[in-house]
């Protein structure tokens, strides 16, 4: 029963690599989107948290009676109400504290009818503290003479990591040059524009619904449950739109269980929302570290070994921050062909704020060291850094000492592309020749590169994703997926892939991914994994649906399924594009036949990576990728100010999926990297943050954004969706050392403790001039 053919043939057009708009952009651009920060529920109370405001103290007494008596106050909770509710990586945190270990320790919380009443109630809580001597640096904290912050962690030692590969003594002996430096990456914070917020509500069966900004909804249940003394199965996670995350929402932080404890106590929904100052003080940081790194090479430029002895400022509690050596050791041993590696890292408890996960997770810190040591060694060798990098660049098929299998590796192509686009070698030599001549403004060019996982990271037992896909009677597709949308643009990628596979318009795809009671498992938005993992999951699910549809079409049209395609909302003959039946009509015929058939498929995608195990040695990602950044800068040698004139990037993206989203992620990643390199710095004095505002904590603004030239190198990853690799962390990782190397090219000075602030740069230049070098 072939349909009468009247329509013109439908051409095959691929959306892969095209520019697709984010489906949520119109509502966001018109103010219609209801972010979690905007949400109000009937009967909702406002929760506020009392922070200790001192880094280390005993709580001698606390009087909450006046706060409890204030009209409009429904609950006041203290550390006693949270005793034993331990949570976190090593169960070293509780939602409310009975002892103060850092400035932002939550010592009490209030739920009240309005924010004003809640704040008034906080001011009525009387706490008497006995201040204790604190630990404010890991170097001091590890000494036996330092105050011991925890009973069960002697010498304040928290997590430790080690990795050794090859004969270090022999490699050192075989080295003609060794770079030996200490790098001190600093504390910065995420600065999500939407401040931290959670809304919690218990039903009368004891089930908690929590509206949260989380970017890992399923493990989140597991991590939140012990903070409340309930089971993960009794938690429903709702994910309304959020104002940014960047890794900061990859763990449970105390305000979330506090909202839930207040909700349980009052029987009403409770919303806890941070002010900007709260956000600066109490949200996680990027991990600060002291990295003693040594890298050796032979006279011909062959790398011989690399060692890293890393001391991490754990802060008061253990979130993702002190776990970054898992990635640090991999990038230490995988950034170029390093045959011998000796890596060790020790985290030390201090009374400073504690670090979480932040875009680039550990690799920002490592690459700040490795990429500068590549430049330092090239200088010692009197070799063009480009030639030095190329000599040591890995090729496809190589395996790093830590067992990262570089299936498709285009590092050399990235290096050559970026160098050629910028005329790197000529400019570098010319600027170096100008370095010591008179003149206030000096130009510099710097090259840096890095490696990062680009196909997820199997740090849990699973790195997979579940997808449910249905196609209704009107050929509208709903994708129910574990993949979270936090602004990064997986929504556009999913729409694009469904449209590509099922030939339906982009706007006919709906994504449901904000309710853990509906959407299936996913590990969360981290490790540059979502386009890779959710992209594969979506494609597999769409292909199952397509196979079902074409099988039905074969039966109805009498043409073999393998000669048919879905295109332009119709079933067509693949070869000529002749439309045979409209897809929605076919779907209705499938539905209303004698044996009804609906299109609703499920899929589980698990990447072919290996679990890490206790020693972290495995091929833990389904893909790895490289990026090269070249920074061109002008330095005012009088004021020390660095103006970044241009950034040229060349990154292995596997394959471009949504070009607009890829550009946007790269540009935004570079901007975060620029802030890290140049201006962002949490000024901590004895554990107290001195600059908790955008006035004093300086983000990159529009006028400071340099010209960007981005080259996307397509290595065509065998495991990736359509060949794609994950992309979003490398742009943040590579930028700071590129600028540091450009600074050296321009002025001959190096800064080992970012940010490269005018003060530090001017001082270094002055000291160099004084020393007469």
């Amino acid at each position: 029963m072939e349909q009468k053919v009247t329509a013109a043939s439908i051409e095959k057009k691929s959306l892969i690599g095209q520019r697709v708009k984010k489906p949520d952009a119109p509502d966001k651009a018109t103010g219609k989107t209801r972010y979690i920060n905007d949400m109000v529920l009937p009967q909702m109370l406002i929760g506020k948290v009392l922070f200790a405001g001192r880094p280390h103290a005993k709580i001698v007494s606390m009087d909450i009676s006046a706060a409890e008596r204030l009209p409009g106050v429904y609950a006041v909770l203290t550390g006693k109400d949270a005793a034993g509710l331990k949570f976190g990586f090593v169960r070293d945190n509780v939602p409310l504290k009975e002892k103060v270990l850092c400035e932002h320790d939550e010592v009490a919380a209030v739920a009240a009818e309005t924010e004003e009443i809640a704040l008034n109630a906080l001011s009525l809580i009387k706490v008497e503290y006995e201040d204790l001597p604190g630990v404010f640096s890991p170097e001091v904290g590890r000494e036996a003479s330092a105050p011991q912050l925890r009973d069960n962690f002697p010498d304040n030692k928290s997590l430790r990591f080690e990795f050794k590969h090859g004969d270090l003594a022999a490699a050192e002996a075989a080295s003609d040059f060794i770079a030996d430096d200490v790098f001190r990456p600093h504390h910065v914070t995420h600065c999500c524009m939407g401040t931290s917020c959670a809304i919690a509500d218990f039903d009368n069966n004891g089930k908690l619904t929590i509206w949260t900004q989380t970017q890992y909804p399923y493990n989140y249940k597991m991590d939140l449950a012990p903070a409340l003394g309930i089971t993960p199965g009794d938690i429903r996670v709702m994910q309304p739109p959020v104002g940014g995350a960047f890794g900061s929402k990859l763990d449970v932080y105390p305000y979330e269980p506090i909202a839930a404890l207040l909700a349980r106590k009052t029987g009403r929904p409770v919303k806890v929302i941070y002010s900007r100052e709260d956000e600066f003080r109490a949200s996680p940081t990027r991990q600060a570290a002291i990295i003693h790194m040594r890298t050796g090479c032979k006279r011909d430029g062959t790398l011989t070994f690399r060692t890293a002895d890393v001391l991490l400022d754990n802060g008061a509690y253990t979130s993702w921050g002190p776990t970054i050596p898992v990635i640090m050791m991999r990038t230490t041993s995988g950034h170029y062909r390093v045959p011998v590696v000796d890596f060790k890292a020790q985290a030390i408890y201090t009374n400073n704020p504690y670090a979480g996960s932040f875009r680039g997770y550990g690799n920002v810190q490592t690459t700040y060291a490795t990429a500068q040591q590549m430049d330092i060694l090239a200088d010692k060798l009197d070799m063009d850094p480009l030639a030095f990098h190329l000599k040591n660049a890995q090729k496809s098929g190589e395996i790093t000492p830590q067992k990262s299998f570089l299936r498709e590796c285009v590092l050399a192509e990235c290096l050559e592309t970026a160098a050629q686009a910028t005329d790197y070698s000529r400019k570098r030599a010319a600027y170096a020749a100008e370095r010591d001549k008179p003149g206030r403004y000096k130009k510099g060019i710097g090259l840096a590169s890095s490696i990062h996982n680009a196909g997820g990271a199997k740090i849990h037992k699973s790195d997979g994703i579940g997808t449910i896909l249905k196609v209704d009677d009107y050929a509208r597709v709903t994708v129910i997926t574990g993949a979270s949308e936090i602004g990064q643009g997986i929504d556009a990628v999913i729409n694009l892939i469904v449209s590509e596979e099922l030939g339906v318009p982009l706007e006919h795809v709906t994504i449901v991914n904000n309710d853990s009671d509906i959407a299936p498992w996913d590990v969360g938005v981290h490790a540059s994994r979502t386009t890779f993992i959710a992209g594969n999951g979506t494609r597999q699910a769409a292909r199952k649906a397509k196979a079902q549809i074409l099988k039905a079409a074969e039966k109805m049209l009498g043409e073999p399924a393998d000669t048919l395609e879905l295109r332009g909302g119709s079933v067509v003959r693949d070869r000529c594009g002749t439309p045979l039946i409209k897809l929605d009509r076919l779907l209705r015929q499938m539905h209303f036949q004698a044996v009804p058939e609906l299109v609703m498929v499920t899929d589980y995608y698990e990447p072919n990576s290996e679990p890490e195990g206790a020693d972290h040695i495995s091929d833990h990602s389904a893909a790895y990728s490289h990026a090269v950044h070249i920074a061109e800068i002008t330095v005012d040698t009088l004021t020390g100010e660095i103006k970044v004139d241009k950034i040229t990037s060349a990154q292995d993206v596997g394959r471009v999926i949504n070009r607009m989203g890829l550009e946007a992620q790269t540009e935004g990643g570079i901007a975060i990297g620029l802030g890290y390199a140049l201006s962002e710095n949490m000024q901590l004095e004895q554990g107290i943050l001195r600059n908790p505002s955008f006035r004093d904590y300086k983000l990159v603004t529009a006028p400071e954004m340099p010209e960007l030239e981005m080259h996307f190198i397509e290595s065509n990853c065998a495991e990736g969706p359509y060949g794609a690799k994950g992309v979003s962390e490398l742009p943040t990782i590579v930028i700071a050392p590129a600028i540091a190397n450009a600074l050296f090219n321009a002025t001959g000075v190096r800064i080992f403790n970012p940010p490269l602030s005018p003060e530090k740069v001017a001082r270094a230049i002055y000291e160099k001039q004084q020393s007469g070098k």
Partner: protein
Amino acid sequence: MSLETEIKFTLNGRPVAVRVPATMKTLTMLREVLGLTGTKYACGEGECGACTVKVDGKTLNSCLMHAVDCDGRELVTIEGLKTPEGMNPMQQAFVDHGAVQCGFCMPGMIMQADYLVGENPRLTREEAQRGLEGNLCRCTGYTKVLDAVASVAEKKCCGRL
């Protein structure tokens, strides 16, 4: 409770009369009294621009302006840029150029960008950069924002808008 005052003003072309406490900021009034949550709180001290609205034709940070000072004035918020025909050209340009990621700063960014192009149809990219200095964004690196603004400025300049 602090002293309340009744104020009357024009909001997105419609007359409004509300009672507000003397200490309340315009941002809070818009979000919590009038239910217009498009205007965002992100710092509360005039540093980030997320709460930008137009008052008598000029943009300002609504977190710094007392609500009572709206009396007799004309306010436009992000909700007021959209017309029955659809999005305002600046909103459309932000969507088309991929300038929106998490989108939280975008209402303020778009209000300011719309104001800049309205004031100066020959706005250059450098002028747009300077004009948006007070609007912080953590997602985009401003590049696509500036592309969007440039596209609207170009159309205005050529008389196509």
